[in-house]
């Protein structure tokens, strides 16, 4: 057994105490406050009043923007996580081959993961500007375009761009997770499959995918959480404009709380966000805990 002797029964608790304390104060406490506000009356100036049941929730759900925001959040999470997982998987398959410059390619792939989201979002915001954006500039210079193209004619298209940026910054994480899974696969499996006459697709579906699944699960679940909570991309590129049409839940609740001073509704939305994430968390826990049985 890979454990050491514990002299006192309470010793382990002493070891985890600092961490527990830190998280209790700075994570659990805010959660408590949010829940308290969500079920209380809040004045415009932010003074928290008496318990008022589900009034905040009702108000939040009855806002005209609520439906759009929820469907945007859904599309945002599904498209960003789905597409980046697919593309990241392909990129990992390619980077798992040996070729010249592989190390360089891996280092380059780190860029979108390492750089701050707010910075990358600003860059993309500049790139797709109509009047002077860099995409138009480069395409005009290369002679691919003859006239500048307006890359953001409508909010739907802007939202698609935001999803694109989300995918762009998410791909490296998926790729590296899958890559670490791929590298732990014994080459003997593939050799045996080749001897048995299995083709590329057969090998992919019977060896690669099942063996990479654990890494893929971790990356997907973590990505769902990150992408759901992702704030800077949308806040930088459109700020949810026009009229919350490109908002997701987190940018919307930020606007509600700090611009419209509707803290009650904002916290109610936070709680709704919790519930959605708890579903994801539960899923994650069941998957992870199953692997942790030997613990």
């Amino acid at each position, binding site marked *: 057994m*890979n*454990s*050491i*002797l514990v002299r006192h029964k309470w010793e*382990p*608790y002493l*070891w*985890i105490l*600092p*961490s527990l*304390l*830190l*998280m209790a*104060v*700075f*994570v659990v*406490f*805010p*959660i408590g*406050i*949010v829940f308290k*506000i969500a079920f209380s009356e809040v004045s415009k100036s932010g003074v928290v009043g008496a318990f008022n049941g589900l009034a905040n929730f009702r108000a939040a759900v009855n806002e005209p923007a609520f439906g759009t925001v929820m469907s945007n959040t859904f599309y945002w999470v599904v498209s960003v996580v789905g597409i980046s997982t697919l593309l990241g998987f392909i*990129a990992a398959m*390619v980077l798992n081959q040996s*070729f010249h410059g592989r190390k360089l*390619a891996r280092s380059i*792939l780190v860029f979108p993961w*390492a*750089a*701050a*989201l*707010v*910075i990358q979002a*600003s*860059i*993309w915001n*500049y790139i797709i500007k109509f009047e*002077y954006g860099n995409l138009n500039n480069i395409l005009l210079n290369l*002679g691919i375009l*003859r006239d500048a193209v307006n890359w953001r004619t409508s909010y739907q298209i802007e939202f698609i761009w935001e999803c694109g940026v989300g995918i*762009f910054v998410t791909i490296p994480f998926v790729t590296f*997770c899958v890559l*670490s899974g791929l590298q732990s696969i014994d080459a003997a499996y593939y050799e045996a499959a080749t001897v048995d006459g299995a083709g590329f697709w057969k090998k992919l579906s019977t060896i690669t995918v099942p063996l990479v699944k654990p890494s893929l*699960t*971790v990356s997907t679940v973590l990505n769902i*959480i990150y992408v*759901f909570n992702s*704030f*800077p991309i949308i806040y930088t590129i459109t700020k949810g404009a026009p009229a919350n049409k490109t908002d997701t839940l*987190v940018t919307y*609740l*930020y606007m509600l709380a*700090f611009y419209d001073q509707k803290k009650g509704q904002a916290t109610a939305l*936070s709680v709704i966000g919790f519930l959605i994430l708890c579903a994801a*968390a539960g899923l*994650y*826990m069941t998957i*992870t*805990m199953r692997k*942790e049985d030997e613990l």
Partner: protein
Amino acid sequence: MTRSPAAKRNLHALWLCAAALLVAVVLTFLPALEFSTVVFTKRSGNTFVGDERYLEARAEAEAAAAAFEGAAIHETVIERVNSKGETTSMVTFDVKESTRMTIWQLLASIGGFSLSSVHTAHAFALCVLLAVVLGALSLRGQLACEHRHLPRSTRVLRTCAAWLGLAAMLCVPLFGMSCNYNFTRQVSLYLTEHAELSGQAVPALERLLYSAAPAGELEALLDGMTMTTLWPLWALLPVLFVFLLGLILLCKGEIKPTLARGGLYAFVIVLCVVILYPFFVMLITAFRSNAETTDMYFLHILPTTWVWSNISDIVARGVPRFLLNSILLSTGATAIALVCGIPAAYAMARMQFRGKKSFLGFVIMSQMFAPVVLLVGITQLMNTLRLNDTILGLMFINAAFNQAFAIWLLRGTFVSISSEMEQAACIDGCNSVSALIRILLPMAAPGIVTTLIFVFINAWNEYTISTVLISTPTNKPITVGITQFSSFNMIEWQYLFASALLATIPVVILFMLIEKHLVSGLTSGGVKG
């Protein structure tokens, strides 16, 4: 006479090459470029198609068209309903003059007004010619030979021929793009610096485009001149690809592995280009002048002059202070996260106790809640603790929200190290604190460094909490600090990106250092337990 399979295959490859080459030559004799300009526009008033005013306008347009060779009249009809409910039309007659040229004509027209993209056409022709010559040279007496028995010289010749074939293929889109670019540039140059260039340019342009143009009207003709590439040019691409395949077949005997390899490199190159593109934009925009950042037309890809003073400008506007704040914040957050995380991870990895599973669950749960969702709660808490608008507060928040990952990564590292040494030390009377510090930590150093850098980068890149909690400018970390360059109605892109550049370089380098460890830590710590 029966041929060996190798000879048969080689012969097929040869036929493939020859056929592709023939088609390619035919294509180069078809018009590949079209230069066109509107020389005359006439709008008829509100009319009905076919009535008097319409005919009048049309006659005028036809008269104008007659002055040019090959001019065509384009009619555009806009219909609308007037107040009486009748549908009237406004007809616009554009007399469009156009000249079509084949690649050969373009090659022949090099004169004073040269399109520098013609060099690409030269390169293209040269590549094809050389490929053919090299291929032919390698054929002497060796058509029947198996590929692995070929002499070295022949193999080299054929490989070179294949590379030339690839080069010829790549020349085609380059030609199209640079032609367009150069032509537009030459014309705009001619129009702006007319006097200087006219001596050589006018006759050459005339020869190139307007042998029948009325004298002295060239400037008007060039204004609004456009160039289009026509389909024969792009048809060259697949044809040359077939030629390339033939060459590869000749030199390797098999196409599939070569293509797979080429596809692999193509994918990697495209991926890298796409990923580097925004960072390239950041780099070049950081050194542009203010005027250039918001000017699209006549802007080169690279800055016309590299404005290094942008850096000194942002230094004067407080960016060093933001960077310092970021360093402070990230270092503090990392220190707190590790001081709290290492003991917890140690207990999780080495000790058995009740509630271990619940603590793990708690850690995982805390990962679910991003600070954004909790912002209202966090601001309230910070007000209560009197930590709002301070870097110290940010340190604690960042440390707390990175606890999950820190414990996760560290636990994975600790578990992967055998506990025998510590157990031996414990038997020798060493307590668990010194066992951790003296034995485990040195062995776990790589994992700890990975965690350290990871938390550091996360704290460095954090934006949302800082933007809400910090209002004093001198307390802002860099991610919030850069937004001072983008106000509602004006964004100073060059300063924004210059500071972003300074903020990005260190984290990217740090990240590259830990990339390998981080990934194995994330998945192994998470999955294998």
